[in-house]
């Protein structure tokens, strides 16, 4: 097959597709034909004998949102099996974690899920604070963390939904989504000086207080956002073509979702009402009232692509609700606990999980009492969510692969770490 030659020439260092398929699937990737050159005389219609075909999607493919290679095994238009090959963006985040002091890692946590830097910062900060045990994070800092995390959740979902539209063929909603996301990035730029990798939430609090008038500008943005979300519904969510492409496609049953460790909108799309902000409230989340949206969507069934999409779009409204409450209750005071320059972390271990836009972000940190962690493990939500792709795309059409992959909402920086 031509793809083999092309792949080998461009990526000579990795194993050949043929070896890979043989080792993993126990099948041979011989040159495959749609029409057999030597029809078997036993077949009723010898000229129509078909073989299974192996199709390589990626690693450079616009719908893979990064560098991801999917190996599809096709029977005509129907997908029989999918094998995901990841690791193209592996940057040794865990090894780096073992070689840095605790407070130096914040910048690296930004770069894992680069669409939700604030959420990653919050997860890392909480993990180290629990490990240290005796840190009193100021009240105001906790509220600011919640505000930033929820704004970032809206921003991340806007990217997810906008690019999902593009994957399926609707380009306009993408521009709408990015227009609104820019406004959130402006707010982030005011507080942190950065638009993508914030390094704002630190161990012990946040690095600096909100600037003058920031709360009013944030409220103004929330007033602006509500009608925009209605507009988004009109343009994309209730568009009959969009619904046809996503409803009843890539159905993920609840038990399979739990078995594969799917979390976040993936799990809630399958009808499981679980949200760490409610079940294991961290920070000050227990003080706010908000709903946990679950599937199904306006049409379709529980656990299909539309349900996952629908959960995300309704989560944005809930996040806006939380931000508004947090702004109203925002206390005054310091934003940073008093900490030594080099953190002394007692020996011990902790597994802390927080709710990221993509699901459960876990940090498992083992300390041996030295200034650097002994082991630093990151449980990334997109890694587990992506692993289910083989299960939910079996039997789907090739054209639906992009719809299914987009609905998982992966960020490869986090999958590969």
């Amino acid at each position: 097959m031509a793809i083999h030659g092309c792949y080998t020439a461009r990526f000579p260092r990795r194993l050949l597709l043929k070896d890979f398929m043989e080792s993993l699937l126990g099948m041979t990737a011989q040159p495959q034909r749609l029409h057999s050159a030597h029809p078997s005389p036993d077949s009723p219609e010898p000229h129509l004998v078909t073989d299974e075909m192996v199709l390589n999607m990626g690693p450079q493919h616009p719908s893979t949102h990064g560098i991801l290679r999917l190996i599809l095994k096709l029977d005509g238009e129907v997908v029989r099996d999918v094998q995901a090959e990841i690791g193209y963006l592996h940057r040794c985040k865990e090894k780096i974690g073992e070689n840095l002091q605790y407070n130096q890692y914040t910048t690296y946590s930004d770069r894992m899920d680069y669409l939700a830097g604030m959420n990653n910062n919050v997860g890392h900060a909480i993990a180290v604070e629990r490990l240290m045990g005796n840190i009193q994070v100021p009240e105001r800092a906790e509220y600011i963390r919640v505000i930033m995390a929820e704004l970032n959740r809206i921003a991340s979902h806007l990217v997810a939904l906008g690019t999902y539209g593009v994957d399926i063929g609707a380009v306009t909603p993408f521009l709408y989504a990015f227009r609104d996301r820019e406004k959130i990035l402006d707010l982030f730029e005011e507080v942190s000086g950065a638009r993508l990798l914030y390094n704002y939430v630190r161990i012990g609090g946040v690095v600096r207080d909100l600037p003058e008038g920031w709360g009013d500008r944030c409220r103004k943005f929330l007033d602006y956002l509500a009608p925009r979300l209605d507009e988004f519904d009109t343009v994309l969510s209730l568009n009959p073509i969009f619904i046809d492409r996503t409803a009843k496609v890539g159905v993920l049953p609840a038990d399979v979702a739990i078995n594969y460790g799917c979390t976040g909108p993936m799990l809630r799309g399958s009808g499981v009402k679980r949200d760490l902000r409610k079940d294991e409230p961290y920070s000050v989340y227990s003080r706010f009232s908000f709903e946990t949206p679950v599937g199904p969507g306006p049409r379709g069934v529980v656990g299909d692509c539309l349900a996952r999409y629908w959960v995300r779009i309704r989560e944005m409204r809930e996040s806006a609700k939380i931000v508004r409450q947090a702004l109203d209750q925002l206390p005054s005071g310091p934003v940073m606990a008093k900490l030594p320059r080099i953190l002394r972390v007692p020996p011990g271990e902790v597994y802390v999980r927080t709710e990221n836009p993509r699901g459960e972000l876990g940090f498992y940190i083992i300390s041996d009492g030295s200034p650097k962690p002994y082991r630093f493990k990151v449980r990334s939500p997109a890694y587990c969510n992506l692993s289910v792709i083989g299960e939910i795309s079996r039997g789907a059409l090739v054209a639906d692969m992009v719809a299914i992959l987009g609905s998982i909402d992966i960020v490869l920086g986090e999958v590969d770490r």
Partner: protein
Amino acid sequence: MTPQALVEFLQAKFDGKLLESGMTGSDPFIRVAPEDWLSVAQSLRETPELQFDYLMCLSSVDRKELLEAVYHFYSYPQQHRLEVKVAALREAPKIPSVVHLWKTADWHEREAYDLMGIEFTGHPHLSRILLPDDWVGHPLRKDYQFPTEYHGIDHTGRKWLTLEDKIPEHLEHQTPEERAAKAAAGRAGARGGTS
């Protein structure tokens, strides 16, 4: 079940199979030998009082002469957490796979194999997942030696191509003499320009 009650329940249920049990911070934990792990895992999932249906995280830890796999479980119906540690000797780090019970373990066990070198027996296709298939060594081990080169790519940052170096054939457009002459002409031109 409260964490303390859970530990007591597990001690009664798996009497003799637990090498260690107690609390790590606020979480209950147990330690199991690799040969008992499969049966313990089965009952963790199927006992009605436990029902650990969700494997949150599987980590690998280098403990000098032991390599350890750490499992973090959560039960959605019962809403309790458990940490399980299974350690194997460094010389032959073999731990039974639990892919048939929790599918999350599939990619996580491959990752632990890839980065730490723990061999999960019974895994359907244990292979490297994040690193290339021909990578040598397991980077998260504490005694890992960083490679100085990978397929001709220098990792030390000290080696630069000189005029005498043999250039790979597919990049060879000119002979070393031609290159030297061109470089000399370039240097002469640069000097001429500045003086």
